[in-house]
């Protein structure tokens, strides 16, 4: 290495910025995105526990477990905050099953299939352990699904945290960890307030979502976005005024970053979920939503009120038979409208 040690500002800057928008009203928690990612990237030794793309039920402990209370990110003055590491169990564990025992001759009626934690114990937590639990009382319980991946933040604390200067933003805005420079010190895991960096105990290096950059370079959307069966996702450059991400984030302002108060300027944006209607004491459907607005504010900040108001207004417009560009965007009758120039075929 020469005397030209890059500054963090250099490592954090990019020419353009790719972004993902996810419409939470449409996500059905099917985990197709999770599996699409896992099949592509995390089947190597030491990656069994990793779900670079993942979906958890909100409110809930989330994935990795209790990531929202693990610290990291920045305070209001931009100072880095201490954070905590995740464990194997937090990251969803790596269950082993007694297939051999159950499937060997004569046992099928006597033995049942039992998962074991990587620790050898009976599991007490795992991926989506609290799926669909949510909150609220009958007859008005509520929950929604939260698909996540690395936010490829514009002010990425993982980059600031790496004492090896191994993490950097590519020209397209994708944040990657140089596996040759990483020495597995895991400061990035502590610094990422989204717990979206994972430690590989076999290679002893840290890994994270790479936004499928080898696909993106060939004009193919990341697998989580492309494989989404709910048509919840849009992808493209934020500065491309023709892209859906630009229109939803910048023009209509209905797609918001998760936990903007962490100060990292995420580039995954969420269209907040519209609420199912609540029942009154007599079991009659009311006009009120079940999802408390305070809960949504806890995830997306105060801007969620205006975003939802805009969506509902445009929906009403459409119900009246008037045109609505926003509703057309959110519906996306032609799927490839969602992915700007990234509509190439993966195979």
């Amino acid at each position: 290495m020469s005397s030209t040690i890059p500054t963090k500002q250099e490592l954090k800057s990019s020419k353009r910025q790719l972004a993902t928008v996810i419409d939470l009203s449409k996500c059905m928690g099917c985990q197709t995105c999770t599996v699409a990612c896992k099949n592509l990237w995390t089947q190597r030794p030491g990656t069994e526990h990793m779900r670079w793309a993942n979906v958890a039920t909100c409110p809930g402990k989330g994935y990795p477990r209790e990531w929202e209370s693990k610290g990291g990110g920045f305070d209001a003055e931009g100072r880095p905050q201490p954070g905590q590491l995740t464990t194997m169990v937090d990251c969803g564990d790596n269950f082993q099953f007694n297939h051999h025992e159950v499937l060997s001759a004569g046992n099928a009626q006597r033995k049942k299939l039992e998962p074991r934690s990587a620790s050898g114990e009976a599991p007490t937590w795992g991926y989506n352990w609290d799926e669909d639990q949510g909150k609220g009382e009958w007859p008005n319980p509520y929950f929604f699904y939260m698909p996540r991946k690395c936010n490829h933040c514009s002010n990425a604390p993982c980059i600031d945290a790496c004492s090896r200067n191994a993490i950097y933003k590519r020209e397209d805005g994708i944040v990657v960890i140089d596996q040759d420079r990483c020495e597995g010190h895991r400061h990035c895991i502590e610094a990422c307030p989204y717990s979206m960096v994972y430690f590989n105990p076999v290679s002893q290096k840290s890994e994270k979502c790479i936004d499928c950059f080898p696909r993106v370079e060939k004009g193919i959307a990341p697998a989580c976005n492309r494989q989404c069966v709910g048509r919840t996702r849009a992808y493209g450059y934020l500065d491309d005024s023709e892209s859906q991400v630009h229109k939803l984030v910048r023009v209509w302002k209905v797609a918001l970053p998760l936990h903007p108060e962490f100060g990292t300027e995420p580039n995954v944006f969420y269209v907040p979920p519209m609420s199912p209607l609540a029942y009154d004491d007599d079991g009659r459907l009311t006009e009120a939503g079940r999802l408390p607005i305070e809960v949504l504010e806890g995830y997306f900040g105060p801007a969620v009120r205006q975003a939802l108001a805009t969506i509902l207004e445009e929906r009403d417009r459409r119900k009246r038979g008037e045109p609505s560009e926003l509703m057309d965007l959110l519906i996306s009758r032609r799927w490839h409208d969602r992915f700007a120039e990234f509509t190439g075929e993966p195979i």
Partner: protein
Amino acid sequence: MAKVKRVAATNQKLLEVDGAAWSGFDRVGIDLIPAPVTMAASVSGQMALSQNHGKVRRVEARLAHNGQSLSVRLSWQDAQRDDQIGDLDRFVDGAAVMFPLQGDANPFTMGDAQHPVNAWLWRADQPEPFDVIARGYSTSQRRPASSSQLEANALYRDGGWHLVFQRPLQPGNGEFTRFAPGEPARIAFAIWEGSNAERAGQKAISGAFVDLELEA
């Protein structure tokens, strides 16, 4: 100033942590301090927040050469043996000795662009040590032990680690600190306590370089 005693023992005998070659040797007691991580805030804001690192406060060193190789035997107390990364939040014990490549260098920053340092790094979970070259924060490079014929041998016993590093005084070509009988040298020490999540700059260090003289 510490003396590097000239001995007749073979390289092999000196690599034995408990070998007779090391009995009756003067021990140099080195006090350690927590590495000042705030200096490294520009390379790791997260590391600079660390407050409780540097748990090991003393290391005992015995130094010998036999005309061919320099051997450094270290002992330190460590109540918990951490020689495996058992979970994603676990770290292993480690130790290093560091020398200026030539002339002077700042041991706190691991040198700088003009003043490189050479270090020998042992980690409790690795079969071989690393030979490290660094030119300041964030620049260290781990080279395989074979590059300089560096060797290490460690033993955990009675609540402490005992470790021998050994390397030829004059390794082959490359950026390695070279030693000669009758000549002065300088050394610094670092210990990582795995159960205290110590890694990278979160470590205990000796601070300034300790002056050495290799017996003629």
